[in-house]
């Protein structure tokens, strides 16, 4: 890791300057040609696939190098100021186009009526905050937030800690990860069968009902039982997301320096103590990051609720309401307002992360 200085590569000065000017221009031209080719899509499928991959990777690398090259040619003072934007620039531009501008557009539309023709002021927001189904959604999303996050991060942490100490680590982690790979399409079928209901006296095909029938409890239509049905749905999320939390926390665990763990052991601390006082504080940043992403996921939760209960039986959530307003009832005003409400709801999370951000330093 020591030597990073550039070495001379033996070209003559003239040759170097020529290549320096010509090559990027030629590369840019071919980059554009490649773009047109891929956009046109005329060649055989596999050719496009391969070109795509090369173009994608090469293109991005090319982008960064050429930006860097250009900035390097500028006067030092200007270069220093502009440099960071080489790194964050492409991301910011893309984010602005794909997410920021649409959000601002939604903000604008949220003040208009269903087909965006008449200005209606705050009517859509009044709907968003007073409609009984919306109120139900807010309280449900809160349940999702608390229990979904605690469950996923909690299990993820425990499993990561345990697996780290086991020889069968890879196998265990793979199985915990599998639900994520199955995706919700398959998961939906599975969980439908966990909660399936058949009338009393019939053979139960649902796992949960079969289980409780061992204790002579009558079979239940689990999704209709309020408010427990929310938890039955949240369990599905925890099952799916624990793998995600586990992977990230596990990677962080691997980065904990052995030296400080050994120091703790030499001091005679118990394993639990080491975990609690050394390891967890060390990976605190990661735990916060994972929790933040899962919190935000629970605010946006849609598929599980929509396909399992359609939001019925008191299980409605914000994103399902947003979908219904926007795509089923074609009310762009309300759909946009609900989306903006989601963005507002995430402000406390942002604030907390900002707080953490301030603790790190740059150069």
């Amino acid at each position: 890791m020591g030597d990073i200085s550039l070495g001379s590569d033996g070209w003559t000065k003239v040759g170097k300057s020529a290549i320096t000017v010509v090559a990027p221009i030629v590369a840019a031209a071919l980059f554009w040609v490649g773009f047109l080719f891929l956009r046109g899509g005329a060649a055989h499928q596999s050719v496009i696939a391969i070109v795509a991959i090369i173009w994608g990777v090469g293109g991005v690398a090319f982008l960064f190098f050429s930006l860097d090259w250009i900035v390097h040619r500028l006067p030092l003072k200007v270069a220093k100021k502009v440099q960071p934007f080489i790194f964050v620039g492409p991301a910011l531009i893309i984010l602005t186009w794909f997410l920021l501008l649409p959000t601002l557009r939604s903000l604008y539309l949220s003040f208009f009526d269903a087909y965006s023709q008449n200005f209606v002021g705050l009517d859509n927001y009044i709907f968003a905050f007073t409609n009984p189904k919306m109120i139900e959604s807010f309280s449900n999303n809160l349940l999702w937030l608390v229990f979904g996050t605690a469950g996923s991060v909690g299990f993820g942490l425990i499993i990561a800690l345990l697996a780290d100490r086991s020889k069968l680590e890879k196998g265990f982690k793979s199985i915990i990860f599998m639900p994520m790979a199955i995706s919700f399409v398959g998961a939906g079928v599975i969980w439908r069968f966990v909660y399936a209901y058949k009338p009393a006296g019939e053979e139960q095909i649902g796992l949960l009902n079969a289980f409780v029938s061992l204790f002579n409890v009558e079979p239940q239509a689990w999704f209709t039982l309020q408010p427990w049905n929310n938890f039955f749905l949240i369990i599905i999320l925890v099952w799916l997301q624990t793998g995600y939390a586990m992977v990230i926390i596990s990677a962080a665990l691997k980065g904990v320096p052995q030296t400080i763990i050994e120091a703790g052991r030499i001091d005679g601390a118990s394993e639990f103590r080491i975990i609690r006082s050394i390891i967890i504080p060390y990976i605190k940043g990661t735990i916060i990051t994972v929790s933040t992403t899962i919190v935000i996921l629970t605010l946006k939760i849609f598929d599980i609720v929509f396909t399992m209960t359609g939001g019925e039986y008191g299980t409605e959530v914000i994103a399902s309401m947003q979908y219904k307003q926007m795509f089923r009832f074609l009310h762009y005003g309300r759909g946009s307002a609900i989306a903006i409400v989601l963005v507002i709801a995430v402000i406390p999370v942002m604030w907390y992360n900002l707080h953490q951000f301030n603790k790190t330093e740059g150069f």
Partner: protein
Amino acid sequence: MKKLTVVLLVLLILIPSLFAGGQKDGAKDQKTVHVFGAFVDEEAHRFEEAIKPFEQRTGIKVVYEGSKDFETLISVRVEGGNAPDIAGLPQPGLMATFASQGKLVPMWASLEHLVDTNYAPVWKDLGSYNGQAFGVFHRVNAKSFVWYPKKAWEREGYQVPKTWNEMLSLMDRMVANGHTPWAVGIEAGGATGWVGTDWIEDIMLRTAGPDVYDKWVSNELPFNAPEVQHAFDILAEIWLNPKYVYGGKNTILTSSFGDSQRPMFDTPPKAWMHRQGNFITGFFPDRIQDNLEEEVGVFALPAIDPSFGIPVLGGGDQFVVFNDRPEVREFMEFLATWDSGKIWAAEGGALFPYLDQDLNAYPNAIERSLAEALVDAQVFRFDASDLMPAQVGAGSFWTGIVDWVNGKPVKQMLDEVQRSWP
């Protein structure tokens, strides 16, 4: 080293760009019509087979794209400027929305003439907005049918009831025999509840008549009017009586609409009747589907008030035009004729409204009788929940049914639905 990297990059991009061919060629010479619809898989295949004669005759290529996410995609594509040439809209309300926004191409003279000739007037009305016709119906479905396990009925000596009271007596007779009359299931993921709306619509037509039905659809008759409550009370006699429905309310709520008929085909049957539209044949167990005429019987849901007879409730996708081009017009005109439907009719699982259709084209006696019922119907009405504004028809009406089955008092539920009317 950096220069070498640049050279490598140049080479990497140079090699593939030898293939650079620019825009698609060849495809431009052939005229293509893009159709977007909600039916997929087997039905999509059958549609493609049905329209092959057109493609062969005219040389126009028709590309059909079907998606289960039609509901989401159609408005995104239309708003996003990427509308298909033709779309098959499942709800007249959707057609009205697009028409009111000026996105649809109105019917032109030659098409209108075909529609006037080949269809009963009701189909043109359903495809119109503000007096202007837009939509052409192709495959339609009829809903007011009761299916039953034929062989088991014959063994028990059950007869097809001709009136509602006869049906109620039959139900009591079944209960006395230790049988459960009905198999009902309304679960449908994000669309749970629509099965209940079909039942209520059938009952409304039979107790209040088609004129009141129309007023109900337009909200001239409020949703919480006595006539509507009466319909729910009649349904409650069946649905909310655990003796009459297999598995009681829990099964109604959790059994998926497609699979809920299965108990009928157990040995012995766990249920003896199932009310559903003609598409349900595709859900029957395979061994039943293979032997449809012998295993399954069907009768029209009987009349309640004899003066209103047996109306037929139905629905269907209407094809509308977003992009006007000569080949698109040609295809639409093809769709308005029996020629475009007869192959699909022969393949089964589809009914068509054309006045000049050949009933013998249908593959079995059951479909033939359904088609006949549809074409000959004295009174035909389109599914109300598809006609009402989406907030109700795909919103509070659906959730109202679910809540009501789950125990909400009918008056409260009806008031809530009425309040939700935009």
